[in-house]
Every structure is written in structure tokens, then in C-alpha cells.
């Protein structure tokens, strides 16, 4: 987790940069990104024909050569600024203006460890694929990778890999199994027809994934070993942070439910179950679920909330102590936040993932209403409607909220007492 104690929680308002001025300095300025602590804002800028750079707080990076291409600009959780950039068809990961040494033919899928100390990318060189973490590519590469993942501590990376080459339309060879998962580049011993979304356990020592055994039998594999039970379908597994057991949504005869270590966990059945999550603090297991067709909710330990949403439920999250859950619920194209089965009164055009205060008494979220962006706390809107805002951050004591916003083209960092909402 990012340490927020050293951030400036006192200065009420800072105008960090005037993006209007950037626009007059460059041919164009792409969409900006604010740093987690709000002190910096950055964007990819075009400086000339096929020439790009990154501008941060009004200052362009000092780079030897302009980039011919640049994309995927993001701040890591620890506040470093990363872009994937190319010159002469050579791609490099550039961190705070300094390129990594290793050059690739292509880079994509930028991801970070929880604390941001590890930066991972998917790479391709001469048609060979692997991941690279902190400038160290895997020793082995493959003809295809997908579903990249990084353990929370950043020490282990994994992806689906193709282990057997397939010629055009070799469907029966495909059905014998040509895919596996690789951890730090080393593949499992077993091949499957398909391998998909995977997850590491808390210490990164185990990897679980969805697998298809033939055209129609699905199950979960852990470190290459498939569960004994066969399911009609499965979704992404996760590890229980306290018990190391594997929990995954599975489709059985009478609907979807959760299974744990190859045993059915919930008695209840649903029209859909996915995005399951476990609270390390409370041991509660919850998932987004459809009680029937077009009725979406959250089920906690197998029991659905009474409230349902017609369009969808997304972005469910536990409170820090694991006693509450908040999510986004959507009905007839209108978005709101729902907390333990009770929806906010405000309806928005878009809502971002809800954020709990450290003590769980408040929920804040970025919202879009009538084409403007703002922040809402416990269902009440901030008094500013902005061109852009970033997701709100609570101070470590929960008394203040960091609001990062663009108003009339100017980027502001504000610290606002929660009581003012």
C-alpha cells in the first residue's frame, strides 16, 4: 500500500499547473494524468511531426531524442511517471524520463505491484513474447502470451503461454492442448486446451488459473494441477488471503455458485457469479451476482442483498475492516453507489470505484453528471463541478479528502475536510 502520511494534508488549495499554457506550447496535449499525491500532472505532448515527449507540471522531460511514438502514460502507486515509447521502432519503458536499458520490438500491458516498486510490461521481440519486470525480461519467451498478471508484491509475474506451435486450422492438435501458464517465464508441466485469467496467492508462491480441458469441460488448475471436478464453465480464481484456499465461480447444473478448493462453497445458485473477493479482516466472501436474468446485486457468504440493479453491478469493494461492501449499481443507464444493499439517492451518468474512509464511516467516489466531473461523499456532491477530477483519496486519519481537479484548464490540488461535504 502507498504510504500517504508524508503527503501534504495541510495546504488547502494549490494551483499546480495551467494546462491552457501547455496547449499553446505544443501542437497538442493528450489526456492528462495526476500523480497519486496530487502534486504533479502529466501528459504526452506532440512537439513536432512524429515527435513526442512527456510534460509534467509544465516542464517537458529532458530526453536525448524525442519519441516517435508514446502511449500508456501512467503514474505508479509510488508516484513515478511511466510511458511506453518508441524511436526507430525500438520500444523502451521510460520511467521519470529515464529509459530502461532493454529494447523491445513492442511493449504493452503496463502494470504495477501494489506498492508500485515493481513495474511490469508485456514484450515482443522478433515475434517472441515474454514479460519484463523492472527491466528484467523472462529468460524464456513464447510465440504467444496473454492474460498477464503480477503478484501483489511484484516478485512474481505470470501469463498464459503457447507451448506447442499450431499450423493453420490445426483444430484437433489445438484440442489436445497447446497452452499453459508460465510463472516468471517457466511453464507449468501441463498443457490445456485453454488457460485464462490467473491469480497469485498472497506471497506469490502459487498460481491458479481458469482452464478448459476439451471443447466443453472447464475447471480450475493450481500450479498446473487441475481440480478433479468438471464444470460447465468457470471464471477467474482468487486465493483466500488467510487460508491459501482457491475460490472460483463455477457453473453447475442448476446455476452459478462459488467453489473453494474443488468443493462447492455456497448452497445458493445464481444466474451469474463473478468478481468474488475475500476480506482478510472479516473472512467474509462476497461476489457480484445475478439473482436471475437482469437482476444484479452483491452476494455475501452466499446471501444476496435484497436490492437488485437492472443493468449491472461493478466495482465492489470491502471496507477496510471487512464489515461493509460498496459497489456501483446501474439501472436504466443511471449509475449510483450502493453500500450494504442501500443505494445512494443521487443518480449519475458515470461513477468510479467507491473509496472507503479508513474507519469505514464514509464512502467517496468520482462521478460524472451532466458532462461535468465531481466528487461525492456519502451521496452528497462536492460544490464544484469540474472539467475533470481524479478519484478521491482519504487522509490517513480519514478527516480530509484529497481532491484533484481540472477547472477551466487549470489543475488544482485541494485538501478538503470531510465535514465540508
Amino acid at each position: 500500500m502507498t504510504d500517504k502520511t508524508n503527503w501534504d494534508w495541510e495546504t488547502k488549495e494549490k494551483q499546480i499547473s495551467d494546462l491552457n499554457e501547455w496547449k499553446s506550447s505544443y501542437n497538442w496535449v493528450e489526456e492528462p494524468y495526476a500523480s497519486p499525491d496530487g502534486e504533479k500532472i502529466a501528459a504526452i505532448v506532440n512537439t513536432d511531426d512524429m515527435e513526442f515527449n512527456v510534460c509534467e507540471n509544465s516542464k517537458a522531460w529532458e530526453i536525448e531524442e524525442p519519441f516517435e511514438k508514446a502511449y500508456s502514460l501512467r503514474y505508479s502507486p509510488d508516484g513515478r511517471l511511466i510511458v511506453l515509447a518508441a524511436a526507430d521502432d525500438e520500444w523502451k519503458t521510460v520511467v521519470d524520463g529515464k529509459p530502461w536499458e532493454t529494447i523491445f520490438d513492442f511493449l504493452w500491458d503496463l502494470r504495477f505491484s501494489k506498492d508500485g516498486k515493481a513495474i511490469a510490461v508485456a514484450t515482443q521481440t522478433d515475434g517472441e513474447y515474454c514479460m519484463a519486470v523492472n527491466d528484467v525480461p523472462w529468460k524464456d519467451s513464447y510465440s504467444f502470451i496473454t492474460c498477464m498478471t503480477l503478484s501483489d508484491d511484484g516478485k512474481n509475474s505470470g501469463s498464459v503461454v503457447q507451448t506447442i506451435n499450431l499450423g493453420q486450422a490445426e483444430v484437433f492438435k489445438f484440442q489436445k492442448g497447446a497452452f499453459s501458464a508460465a510463472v516468471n517465464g517457466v511453464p507449468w508441466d501441463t498443457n490445456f486446451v485453454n488457460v485464462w485469467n490467473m491469480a497469485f496467492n498472497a506471497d506469490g508462491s502459487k498460481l491458479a488459473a481458469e482452464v478448459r480441458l476439451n471443447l466443453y469441460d472447464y475447471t480450475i488448475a493450481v500450479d498446473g494441477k487441475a481440480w478433479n471436478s468438471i464444470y460447465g464453465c468457470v471464471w477467474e480464481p482468487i486465493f483466500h488471503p488467510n487460508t491459501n484456499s482457491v475460490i472460483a465461480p463455477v457453473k453447475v447444473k442448476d446455476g452459478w455458485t462459488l467453489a473453494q478448493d474443488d468443493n462447492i462453497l455456497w448452497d445458493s445458485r445464481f444466474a451469474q457469479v463473478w468478481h468474488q473477493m475475500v476480506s482478510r479482516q472479516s473472512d467474509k466472501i462476497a461476489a457480484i451476482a445475478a439473482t436471475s436474468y437482469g437482476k444484479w446485486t452483491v452476494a455475501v457468504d452466499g446471501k444476496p442483498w435484497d436490492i437488485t440493479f437492472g443493468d449491472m453491478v461493478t466495482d465492489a469493494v470491502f471496507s477496510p475492516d471487512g464489515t461493509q461492501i460498496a459497489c456501483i449499481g446501474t439501472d436504466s443507464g443511471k449509475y449510483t453507489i450502493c453500500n450494504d444493499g442501500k443505494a445512494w439517492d443521487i443518480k449519475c451518468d458515470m461513477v468510479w470505484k467507491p473509496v472507503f474512509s479508513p474507519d469505514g464511516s464514509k464512502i467517496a467516489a468520482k462521478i460524472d453528471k451532466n458532462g461535468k466531473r465531481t466528487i461525492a461523499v456519502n451521496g452528497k456532491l462536492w460544490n464544484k463541478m469540474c472539467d475533470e477530477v481524479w478519484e478521491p483519496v482519504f487522509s490517513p486519519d480519514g478527516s480530509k479528502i484529497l481532491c484533484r481537479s481540472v477547472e477551466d484548464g487549470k489543475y488544482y490540488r485541494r485538501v478538503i475536510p470531510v465535514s465540508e461535504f
Partner: protein
Amino acid sequence: MALPYIEYEKNIIDEGLETGMKNLTQERIDKALAKVLDGETGAKLKAYVDTCVHCGLCSDACHMYLSTKRDPTLTPAGKVKRSLSVLLENRGNITPEIIKKVSIVASTECNLCKRCVHYCPFGIDIAYMMSVVRRICHLCGVTPLYIQDTAHSHAVTQNQMWVKEDEWIDTLQWQEEDAREEIPDCRIPLDKEGADFMYSVIGPEPKFLAQLLYQTAIIFNTAGLNWTMPSCPGWDNSDMAMFTGDSEIMGRNKRFHYEAAQRLKVKRIVMGECGHAFRSVWDMGNRWLGWGMPPVPMVHAIEFYYDLLKSGKIKVKEKYKKSVTLHDPCNTIRGMGLHEKARYVVNELCENFIEMHPNREHNYCCNAGGGVINCGPPFKKKRVATNRIKAQQIADTGAEILITPCHNCHSGMEDIIGDYGVGMHVKFINDIMYEVMEKPEIE
């Protein structure tokens, strides 16, 4: 002028069907039948089977029947008789050979176009019945080779064409770079969170038809739209797994698609000119997952172009001069009723629009849809031969250009135009809009 009838080989050998049949066991057949007939189908299938009175009124709906000197085996009811009825009536005695035979009927002799539903006094949905047969064949592993390979591509890459993740991004960046020759600050914004909409396409666009991405970039940048495309899997809205009966892969792909949009926090998805993909995102895949409607509002290109022209965001510099006719793709016209909007768009863009007859929801199918064209070269001649009526219909318009706002229709039409010698070119609306629109002046 009357076009000739084309003879075709009835006994087509397809490796997917032959090897699938050889690998098939009795136990697997019984399991597949039990899963589908006892588990997945219910009152709907029973009602259709019990209600059909074999009156034959649906026969004249089917382009295959009409194209083949009225071959009775190709009537909608005749196809049911040769596939689903065989399975229902002989359950317990179904052999691998029978599965192969019914797979040929369901996969290559019906486009799931639903024209016949309009002709049946009871509204019996033959397309649904054919889909049930395809599902059984999928669970038996007996599906034509090329479409099975495409379903495998969907399973591995979440796109139709085995396009790798870097190839997708690279193609977009290349098109963006080329488009800057016309609009210096033109962008194809990748992963722009909070954009108004996500634009999604089908696998063949980056693979073979990258100019459509280029043209779209010019159209959207000219209109000043706030849009994005995902750099990750989920960008492809197409779905051959839906047509092989692999519902699980269909659902998985639609989940990737909609979750890409959810992660990007877009208010809606706009999709390119594809018909079957619309069926998958609007009706089939979303519902298999439990969403009643698309969880993120979904707009087909026809409707989006209509809005762009109606709102004046795109203005026409000079209308297209050549005479054009318009094909009505089954999935967006019979499936969604976008025919009047399509005509508005064509009339706004083109000076000389000639209707083909019949038209709108009564239009004939292209015979490529429903995955039939994706069954590949072994079935091409049969596909062309069983759509003489469509070739005749478009030839009778005398138009120079055929507009088909659907990828599968596009390819199918090119085949019949070529083989029947109809002198016509096929275009997407996108091609014509790009050609006739006002573009920003370069300073």
C-alpha cells in the same frame, strides 16, 4: 437478364466434420443430447416442434430454396426435418455419421437469418432450432473445420483472427500515423478512461481491412468526438463461437468486451459495420451472461452515422455520384429495425439510391451470415450456388455500387457478384462517408 443456376457438389468433404466424426463416441453423443435437450432447451423448443404443421408456407422465405430450382430439402421445414427431427425421433440410436450429417445441414445450409419466421403463421423460429442442432454438434466436436478454428481463435485471443495483442495496438498506431497525413493532430485514443464512447470492431478490420480504422479515425476526429479504443482484449465484438454453438466461449468473449468498456468508464459502445457481432453483443452473448440488455448501451454504426449526419457533426461536401443500392443485413434490420436509418444515411451521402426488391425486413439474406461463410473454402461453391436469388436481386437494380453495412454480407456479396458476373462493387457506408464528407482544411 436471368442469371444461370450453378451446379454444386452435394457430397462435400470437410476435415473438421470427418475427423470429428471419427473421434466421436456413443457416450459423448448421449451426453451432448442430454445436456442440450434435457438441460438447456425447454418449452420453447417443444412448442416449435409440436406446433409446426408442415404447411410449407415458410419455403418461399428461404433464399436457398428459391436459388436452387426449389430443392425441397432446402426449405426451412425441410432442414428441420433433416436435422433436429432426426435427433429427436432417433434419440438413443444416433450415430457419429448422423451427427456429421445434421451438422452439415445446421452449419452450412441455414444462415439463421430469420426471414422464414416472418412467413410462418405461428412465428416458428427455424434459426433457433438450427442453433440447437449446432450446439449439440459442438458438444460432439463435429463442426466444419474453418469455423471451428475461428472459434478457437476467439477462445485464445478473444478475437476472430488470431490477432496478437501487440499486433492490435501496432495496427491502430500505424493507422493513426497515416491519418495524420490528412489531419495532423488525428488520434486513435487508446484506453482513454471516461471517454464518451468505446469504439469496437471485428477481427478482420486490423487483419485485412485496416483502411476502415483509418477512415473511422478521420470521421471521428472530424466530428470532434471524445472516444477511445481498448488496448487489451475485448476490442473485438465479433463472435463465431455463437455460431458454432460454443455458448461458453461466446459468453467469455462478450464478458471481455463489456468489461473493457466498464473499465474504461465509457457511457456507451459504438460498433462498426458488422451484423452478426451486433446479434452477439445485443442479444445473444449479453443474455447468456445474465444481462437483460447490453450492460453498457450499444449503438450500431448505422445508427451512429445517422446521428452524425442528423446532428450536422459530419457534413457532406458533395454527394456520391455513382448509383447505389442497399442491402439490409439480417441482424441489424430484422434483428433491430435499423432499415429507415440506413436509408436516411444512404440518401444523405448518395445522389442516386436505387432500392432492391424485396427490401427492409423482407430483404433476402446474403447467404454468408450465420457463420456459413466462415465454414470456408470447402463450402464456397455451394454457398454461391444457393444464393442465385440474391445475385439476381442486386443485378436487377442496375446500380453500380452495392452498400452493405455488414462484414459477412460484404464478403458474401463479393463472392456472388464475382461468380455470377454481376458488374458491381461492394462498399461499406464508412467508405462512402469518408469519401464525400467535409474534412478539416490543413493549414
